[in-house]
Every structure is written in structure tokens, then in C-alpha cells.
């Protein structure tokens, strides 16, 4: 089941370093518990996998430079920002490129 893109539900920023450190920062409480992040190269889509197996597109387009950095990582930190911009419940998720 494909959920609405996360960026349609709340403000989301996707941050990638040249060394491959990746963070997904979102403002507001996500409606799902995520266990995994993957990149589907055919759909050109960063996808979050929920605990109950649903897929949610991030809803952001990454440029080539970001994609190259993304491919270096093995984990993504999900960081929720509260309304007053405090960090709440950061969580590390495994990352992989999706193999078709």
C-alpha cells in the first residue's frame, strides 16, 4: 500500500553530507512508525517503509550529487522537530537501495 508522500503531510527536509550521512528532518509527528528507508532508482523515489509494511514516498526530488552521497550511506536518521523546533525522538533507520 502506497501512502501519501510525507512532504505532503508535513514540512520535510532531506539532508545529505558528502560522506553519506543522511538525515530526514520533519516538523510534526509522523502518523506511522518507520523501520526502513530505501531508494527506488526506477521510480527515482526515496521511500519510507512502515512497521506494517506500507510504503511512503518522501515526496522530494534529489539531484545527482545528493543521490551519489545517498548511495554511500547505510542508515538514515529520522528527526522529528516539535512545534517549538525542539528535537524529539531521533531514530536511526537502515537504508538500502532497492534491488528489483
Amino acid at each position, binding site marked *: 500500500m502506497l501512502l501519501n508522500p510525507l*512532504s505532503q503531510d508535513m514540512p520535510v*527536509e532531506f539532508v545529505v*553530507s558528502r560522506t553519506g550521512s543522511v538525515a530526514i*528532518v*520533519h516538523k510534526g509527528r509522523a502518523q506511522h512508525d518507520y523501520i526502513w528507508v530505501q531508494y527506488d532508482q526506477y521510480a527515482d523515489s526515496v521511500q519510507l517503509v512502515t512497521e506494517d509494511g506500507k510504503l511512503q514516498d518522501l515526496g522530494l526530488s534529489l539531484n545527482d550529487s545528493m543521490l551519489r552521497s545517498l548511495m554511500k550511506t547505510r542508515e538514515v536518521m529520522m528527526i522529528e522537530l516539535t512545534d517549538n523546533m525542539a528535537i*524529539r525522538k531521533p531514530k536511526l533507520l537502515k537504508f538500502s537501495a532497492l534491488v528489483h
Partner: protein
Amino acid sequence: MVTNIDTDVELGPGQDGPDDIVTHEVTLVRMVNGIPEAIVVSVDDSASSPTFSVEALGNLPGVWGAFNDDGMARADMKAGATNFLEADGFDASELSPVDAITFLEDAIVDGESVGADLLAEAGLSSMDINNLDAESKAAHEAALEARAQELAASQDAKIEDNDPSLGILQPGRGLV
């Protein structure tokens, strides 16, 4: 956060029957306050159930890699081990805001971003440890110092014991 797993894992009979049991010492590497930490677990790698395999351990949240006793990285994506380890009290996804800030430091120094400008809105766009409030900065520095001392003590003990497993931890590569 649980930092030690000391358990013998019984995953059931192997593929060739109940006598087909192979136990591996598996080193999990994860980041704690920005410092790689190794955890050694004993795992029966011969279970017939594909959901509990040594490969799965490398895909636990927070774990950068899993390396078995011959040093080979195990990277196959399989589910199941998370539940198994969490049942043993392991919760690698339990992180503090200081962990997040430490993580973000690297991501922001030379990185790029797309989407909403949340980090700037949160005052984190020029992420630097000096930008932390006093309490978080103290916690960050204390965590790094404590971990550094712990690692140094651990290495000293291994040197005294002439432990052949002594190696250099590298994120994502484990003991090299």
C-alpha cells in the same frame, strides 16, 4: 540504551537437521554519540528459518555493519532479527537529541539539503557544537569523553591480554 548483549542464541535446527548447528561470534558495529561501538553476540547461523539469520543483524536500526568471526561483512537484507534482539532488551533505535545533533554535525558541515528549510528554522543551519545550549554541549562532551576513556581502557585490556581480536574500528567496516 543497552550497550551489551551477552547471550547465546538458539535459533532452532539447521538446514540439515537438528545437529546442523554452527555458532558464530558476530560483531555488530553501531554509532553511540558519534563514536563507533562494537558489540559481540553469539549467533547460531544454521537455523532453517530465513528470518533469523546472521545477515539480518547487520540491518538492525543503528547498526552500521555486522561482521562474523572470519571478518566477513554480512549484508543481506532480511527481517526478523530486530524483534529477536529487542526481546532481549536491545533497542538500537533509542537515541537522544545529543545523538541527533552529533549526527547532524557531519551531515551539515559539507552537505546539501532539499525540501523545507527546517534546520535553519531550528537554528541548526550552521551546525556547530558551539551552537548547542550549555546543557546539551556539556552532555555531548561528557559522552564523548566517557566513551573515549571506555575505549582506551578496553584497548589497554586487550593489549595486556594479547588479544588477537584487537583491531581498529571504522564506521561501516567494523574491526579492520
